[in-house]
């Protein structure tokens, strides 16, 4: 599939996964793939973490949009980004509904805590409601939402269903219905789940995927398997034999280190492939596979590398 076509399938992509699986890195790479095809891309971050900005070498994100990565010309668009917090979204919501005067008081008096307790999921709905508003307003060709981590992803995306049960009337109910319409319409929104090729993350991804499809009616895009060791030719050779073949000499202990490191990589690679296979048979969704990067940190160069791989993986999709 052509990356431009892939990124145009829906206006919103929600990237979700457990903490530590590289969700933010995948968000960054996907946004870059989209922007390279000329789509004006907006990344929305909801937890106030600095990882996303750091991946593009930018300072901390705020409620105001910034350009994270300017397009390089030749029809490439910018990647822009902003954060969205429930408190900000609520204040904006109240102001939009002509309630500017009470909004500050609502926060100061602590009534807001009481309301968010009384109506679980209201914070999530405010964020998703704002995303829906951005989508409707056409602020970008593609909005990539870096969803909250951990098991929270399910409750985050379940919030409109829950609210429809809890609030029987009023604007919040309307809001929840509109968000649910967005989430369940594959032409408007798809969810990309991210995992590592390890046992527990794979199990949890499968559970999450079924929960989201069955309980929310979401349409799931391909899953991203992150952190795979690339295969390297030549690691099967014995270091002493390889040294002789290359007419090189090895220092004391070097052969052992080379052999152990090669063995470790082969073993890990096999374990990873086993998990990839397990995921494949447990979850009938196409996979996009990203490599483990042996670099100290994720910065702009690494995001570029991952975007290159991601674009190739998308091209290989049926």
């Amino acid at each position, binding site marked *: 599939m052509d990356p431009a076509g892939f990124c145009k399938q829906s206006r919103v992509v929600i990237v979700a996964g457990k903490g530590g699986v590289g969700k933010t890195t995948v968000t960054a790479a996907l946004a870059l793939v989209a922007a390279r095809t000329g789509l004006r891309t907006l990344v929305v971050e909801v937890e106030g973490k600095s990882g996303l900005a750091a991946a593009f070498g930018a300072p901390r994100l705020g409620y105001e949009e910034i350009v994270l990565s300017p397009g390089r010309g030749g029809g490439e668009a910018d990647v822009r980004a902003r954060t969205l917090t429930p408190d900000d979204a609520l204040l904006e919501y109240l102001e939009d509904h002509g309630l500017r005067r*009470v909004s500050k008081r609502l926060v100061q008096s602590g009534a807001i805590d009481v309301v968010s307790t009384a109506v679980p999921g209201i914070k999530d709905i405010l964020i998703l409601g704002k995303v829906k508003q951005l989508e409707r307003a056409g602020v970008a060709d593609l909005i990539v939402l870096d969803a909250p981590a951990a098991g929270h992803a399910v409750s985050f995306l379940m919030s409109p269903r829950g609210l429809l049960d809890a609030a029987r009337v009023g604007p919040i109910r309307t809001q929840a219905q509109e968000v649910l319409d967005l989430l369940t319409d594959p032409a408007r929104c798809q969810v990309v789940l991210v995992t590592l090729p390890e046992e527990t993350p794979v199990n949890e991804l499968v559970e999450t995927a079924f929960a989201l499809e069955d309980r929310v009616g979401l349409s799931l895009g391909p899953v991203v398997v992150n952190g795979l060791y690339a295969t390297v030719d030549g690691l099967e050779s014995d270091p002493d034999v390889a040294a002789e073949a290359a007419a090189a000499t090895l220092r004391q202990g070097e052969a052992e280190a080379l052999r152990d490191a090669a063995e470790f990589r082969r073993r890990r690679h096999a374990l990873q492939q086993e998990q990839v296979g397990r995921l494949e048979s447990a979850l009938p969704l196409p996979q996009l596979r990203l490599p483990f990067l042996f670099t100290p940190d994720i910065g702009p160069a690494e995001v570029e590398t991952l975007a290159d791989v991601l674009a190739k993986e998308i091209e290989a999709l049926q």
Partner: protein
Amino acid sequence: MTLTALARTRAIVICCGSGGVGKTTAAAALALEGARLGRSAVVVTIDPAKRLANAMGLDELSNTPKRIDGDWPGELWAMMLDTKSTFDALVLKYAPDRSQAESILRNRFYRNIAGALSGTQEYMAMEKLFELHESGQFELIVVDTPPTRNALDFIDAPRRLTRFLDNRIFRWLMLPTRAYLKAVNVATQALLRTISRVVGSEVIKDAVAFFRAFEGMEDGFRDRAQRVLALLSDPGTAFVLVASPRRDAVEEASFFADKLRDAGLPVESLVVNRLHPRFGAGRPEADRERARTLAGTDLGALFANLADFRLVAQREDEHIAGLASKVAPAPVTRVPFLPTDVHDLEGLREVGGYLFDVAG
């Protein structure tokens, strides 16, 4: 203090750290070590991976510890926290009579607090800890903490909840109608109308009914919260920080360490899980250089691979050094990446081999 010493001498060990770093496994291994050392130990887990839970005989949430049989001289017990039942038990304990308790337990607003108020899970974990401690049944209680982003929720939660229950707005709401109109100024009335309009008036009705039913119970809760906090700073209680050597996990762990220190609850032991192996003592730059000159040969590939892993090791060591200096003099225990996840007692024993002194 070493983990062996903690398992041998402390009454309470609290494992904290971000999600996905092997915190539950470390907690379970600590309890098992306690049992191995002849003590009566219990582990309170929050959200264990299914297979580990099954291995420990925990098929479902339970509010009472289950005993796990094995060939250790002490006792090993385990439980998986049921937040809602723990909260219900607390309400039953502090309600002056059965009917008041019932009206709270039935209230929709209460059910939301028990299920969804952020911090409730943390609070109930601490509440359960307190209860187990008071029971006197266990010599060692190991607690796994919820993997929240807001690191210190489990310390703040009791205070937050009591503050929440004291909410001023609802003092006004609970006044009888006429006094209410007098006491509440125009701005507040507008505010309440707004809330009703946005979320529906039932929500407000449920909330008012809850706060009315809860009247008079705040003192009991506040007092309890105080005692829970006192228990956390007791010398018999130790905090163990669990991390993995990735940058984001280390950043969160540093944040935890700072917050715990600020709260006067220093980290006494640091566990770093999922380390890549070390392959001798060479520098990655030198290996990379040799890979370059030997490019195209098998030996070049072997050196490139070694350079990759030595670079990862170097980065991990930097991360760990930063974290270790933050929690000094707490010792650092390193656990390598294991080929399979821990999902049985055999696996726990294997992890134990890395965590505890062999002789111990």
